[in-house]
Each structure stands twice: as C-alpha cells, then as structure tokens.
C-alpha cells in the first residue's frame, strides 16, 4: 500500500485545510462520517494559520493571538479521526462528486457523497506598473514567508495598499523587530464617510478593539503616508524605487528593496466555477461569490462551500461556516452532530459577520488600482497589457472568454487567478456594463496543472476510448 491510501469513496470530502476545512472535517469525523481532508500545502492551517504546527516563529507575541487561535482547531482536527492528506491537489471535481487528486506526482480518482469546498481566498490582483518586477511581492506572500520560514525583510521595505491584512503584517513585522520605511495607504479618502453608516455593528463585532489597538501600534512605529492615488514600481531587473502620489500632489519616490502590495482578498473561485457552481458578482466585495443557501450548499447538489470561498468574512467566520456545512452534510447522510448547537453556531457566525459591511466599505480598493491602463501588465502569465485589453474592447470583444482567445489573457498556468477580476472589471468599465453582465472566464479541469502522464494513467472507459479512436 502506498503511504497515503486514498479510498474509492468517502462520506465527506473536504478540500482545503484552513479554518473552514479543519472545523468541517473535525465535526464530520466526530459525527461518525468517513471523512477525508485534502490540502495542497504540506502542513495544516491554510494561509491564515499557515505552518501553525511547525513555524519557526515561536514567540507568540510576533504573530499574535489571531494566529495562535488556530492551535485549538488544529488539535481538535488531529484527534478527530478524519483522514488528512497533505500535498494533495484537487484538480477536478464533477457534479457527481468524483474527485481527481494529484499527490506525489500521480493522480487518483475518488468520490464522496458530500463535498465541502474550503479553498479560501486569494489576494486581489494589484496591477500597478512594475508589479511583475522581482522585489515586488504580495503582502500575503511576505506574511507566509514569515510564518512558514521565519523570513523578515531586509533593507528598505515599503508596504502599499489597503485592507486589514496589510496592517496585520505590518504589526507582525514590527513585533519581530523588522523596520518599515513606509506604509503607503491607498484607502480612498471617501471610504470613511461611506463606511460610517456601518460603524455601529462593527463596534460590537469584537474586531473593533483589537483592530484599533493594532492600527495605533503600527502608526506609532512606522511612517504611514495616506491618501495614495498612484503607485508605480520602478526598476530594471529588480525594483529599486516606488513612485507614488498623495491626492493630487506631485509624484514622489522612495528607494526600496522590498515592495509588498495588498488590496484585499477575493474568493478562490477556480474549483467551484470549474464544477459549474453558480456565482454572482458582489458589488460590496468587488468579486465573485458563490450562490449558497444558509448552510453553504451550492447550486450543485451535494457540494457546499465554506470559509472565505463563500464570500470574504475572515478566519473566525470560516470556522463557523465550516461547522454549518458539516452539520448539513451529516444531516443529509442521516447522521447528526450532537454539539455545538446549531443556534449557537448561527449566533457566532452572525457575530463574526456583523462588522463586515464596515470593513468592506472602509477598505474598498480604489478604482485606479483595480482598473489599470497603458502598458501595465494585467495577465502576468501571458504578459497581456491593459491597453491591449482596452483596444480589444474597442474591436467589439464582448467579454473575458473572447478576450482570452484574442489576447491569451487567462490562458497561462495561473488560469486567470491573477488577472480574472481585472479583465472582468476593465471590460465592464469600458463597455458601461456591470461585472455581473460581463461574466468571467469559463474554467475547466484540471484547475491546477497536472502532468499529461498522470492524466494518461487514469482508468479508461469504453465510451471515452470510442470517443477518441472511433474503434
């Protein structure tokens, strides 16, 4: 038997070992369901609790309580009896819940009576001039390097963008003794006023106090330059400067060794969209979100989505959503989970969601940073630029799929993860339509690259052989 024995079928398969996946798997297994958890990374935690069981950053003050909270979840999962399969990339899921998994260079097919997709979020693209230069990296990536490898930036470091994660990484860096040259805050000036009506629920959400404390601590120690209205990374083979403007002011430059960008996160839609799960555009979060019922069940029977993949709500909400999905899965399979009580889960989830409209409004990224122009690269894989896309729109190109054929954007190995939102928004803006009307790339398996050889080694059906050989 190979080191990881994947069974032909499970009661429940959970994809992704972040907070939603860990909580869902724990509860399913406790409820007596045969449960498997596939995760692409080598260790549990997803990105938020990345490397929690093995991080070299053992001083708990550095990463903070919001990170270490993940230990309880992880422990509960480890003792739940769920099968955990790390370094396993789910590349295919059918509406009949057949699952293609790649691990250690080979692929297997398995199946589950219920599937919970917990593939989380991706950082929103931040297409500024020069964002492809070495030395420019997403702030999430910088944080992963800290959590998983204990790496701190050396030299002159600038963080730019907006959103809670930007401030969190700044705080963690300062805790670890790193120096920050500047934080370039791109939060549009008008956002505060638009967020104000949502302030009251946020005050009672539990995020307010910790958030304020963190913000104050960062602002005490790092120079924050607010009202940034343009950004450009400059350099030949590597970033050497960041150029920025404040408001309508003149361009200024800072010399940098590291530029970390972040403007929020968006659900990772590649797997659910490839299955054919219905999504809608969220104007509040400026991204695609799956259409789900109150338990996270998606438009395809037997498949649920929990965690930030269900709409951005943060790690704590992800846990509760994971539990709800697990309860629904158990119930559908004729089991029940004794505790927690569903009403308790719903109350906790409601509490976590309470502050979200405020955060969405406050940290809504500026249009200028979502809809680039000129020769700014939009598709990093195929090096398609904004002006090429805008020219193709003038040619009558109606949407992202025709755009893909005309310009190859979204055709590379990242499968649109780093350009899809930008392309949709650019087309919507230039055609005067909503992103909902414009739509998104049509996605298909494999949602992550696998080798031709591993696909070739899968079992064949007579119908498939006939379809190819006509014999």
């Amino acid at each position, binding site marked *: 038997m190979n080191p990881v024995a994947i069974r032909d079928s499970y009661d429940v398969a959970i994809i992704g070992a972040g907070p939603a996946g860990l909580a869902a798997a724990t509860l399913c297994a406790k409820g007596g369901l045969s449960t498997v958890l596939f995760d692409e990374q080598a260790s549990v935690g997803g990105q938020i609790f990345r490397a929690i069981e093995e991080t070299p950053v053992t001083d708990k003050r550095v990463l903070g309580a919001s990170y270490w909270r993940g230990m309880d979840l992880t422990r509960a999962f480890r003792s739940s009896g769920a099968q955990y399969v790390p370094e396993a990339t789910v590349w295919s899921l059918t509406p009949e819940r057949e699952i293609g998994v790649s691990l250690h260079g080979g692929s297997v097919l398995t199946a589950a009576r219920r599937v919970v997709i917990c593939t989380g979020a991706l950082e929103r693209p931040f297409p500024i001039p020069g964002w492809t230069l070495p030395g420019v990296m997403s702030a999430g990536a910088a944080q992963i390097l800290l959590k998983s490898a204990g790496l701190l930036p050396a030299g002159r470091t600038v963080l730019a963008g907006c959103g809670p994660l930007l401030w969190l990484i700044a705080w963690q860096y300062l805790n670890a003794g790193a120096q920050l040259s500047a934080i370039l805050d791109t939060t549009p000036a008008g956002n505060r006023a638009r967020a104000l009506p949502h302030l009251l629920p946020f005050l009672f959400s539990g995020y307010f106090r910790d958030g304020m404390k963190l913000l104050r601590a960062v602002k005490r120690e790092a120079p924050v330059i607010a009202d940034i209205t343009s950004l450009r990374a400059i350099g030949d*083979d*590597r970033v050497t400067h960041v150029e920025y403007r404040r408001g309508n002011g003149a361009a200024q430059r800072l010399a940098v060794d590291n530029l970390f960008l972040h403007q929020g996160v968006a659900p990772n839609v590649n797997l659910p969209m490839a299955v054919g799960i219905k999504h809608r555009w969220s104007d509040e979060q400026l991204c695609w979100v799956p259409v789900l019922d109150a338990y996270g069940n998606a438009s395809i029977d037997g498949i649920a989505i929990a965690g930030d993949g269900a709409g951005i709500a943060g790690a704590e909400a992800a846990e509760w959503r994971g539990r709800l999905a697990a309860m629904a899965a158990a119930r559908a399979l004729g089991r029940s989970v004794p505790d927690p009580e569903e009403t308790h889960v719903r109350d906790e989830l409601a509490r976590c969601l309470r502050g979200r409209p405020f955060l969405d409004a406050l940290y809504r990224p500026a249009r200028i940073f979502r809809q680039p122009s000129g020769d700014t690269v939009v598709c*990093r894989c195929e*090096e398609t630029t904004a002006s090429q896309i805008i020219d193709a729109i003038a040619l009558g190109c109606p949407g992202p799929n025709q755009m893909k054929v005309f310009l190859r954007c979204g055709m590379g190995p990242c499968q649109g993860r780093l350009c899809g939102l930008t392309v949709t928004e650019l087309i919507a803006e230039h055609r005067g339509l909503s992103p909902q009307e414009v739509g998104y790339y049509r996605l298909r398996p494999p949602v992550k690259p696998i080798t031709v050889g591993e696909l070739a080694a899968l079992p064949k059906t007579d119908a498939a052989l006939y379809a190819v050989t006509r014999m």
Partner: protein
Amino acid sequence: MFQRSQPDKAERTVTLTIDGRSVTAREGDTVAAAMLAAGIPHCRTTPISGVPRAPYCMMGVCFDCLVVVDGVGNRQGCLVRVRDGMTVELQSGKRGLP
C-alpha cells in the same frame, strides 16, 4: 531581500544547490523561501518577453516561482520543500524537454 529572523530553537538544516550555488536552508523551507533567504534575485525568466520574475504569491497560485527541480522544469518553487542534495536551476523561458 530577506533575512532569517533569529531562530528560537536549534533548527535542522539541509544543503542544496541553487543556480550553481551551495545553499543552506532550514528544513521545512520551500524552494522559493530558500531562494529568497539566499538572496537569489529571481526564479525564472518569462517565456514571452524573457524578463526576470521572482515569487509573488507564495501560496501556489501565481506561477511566478517556477524553477527546475532535479531536472524537472516548471515546478512551483513555493510548493516544493527543500531536500538535502536537491538541485534547483532557474527556469529560463519555456520549459525544455531534453
């Protein structure tokens, strides 16, 4: 540019070759992290314009950290863990198929 924070505990290391250099990395590092820690300026050059790229997302979605690992091209450096004796080369443009 990155540096290692002071480790809180004695850590095991592995030695590998990256772009012809002998590099010591922490056991458990990904190839991409090891490259950044070692100051390797980029992972690959693109198959289209040939410009250099370095890791961008570190979570397996951007494909900018593609490298050649033990002769196999276009591996995602952020998803592969370092091993003793591993040879990592920069991915130069399109993948070769020797």
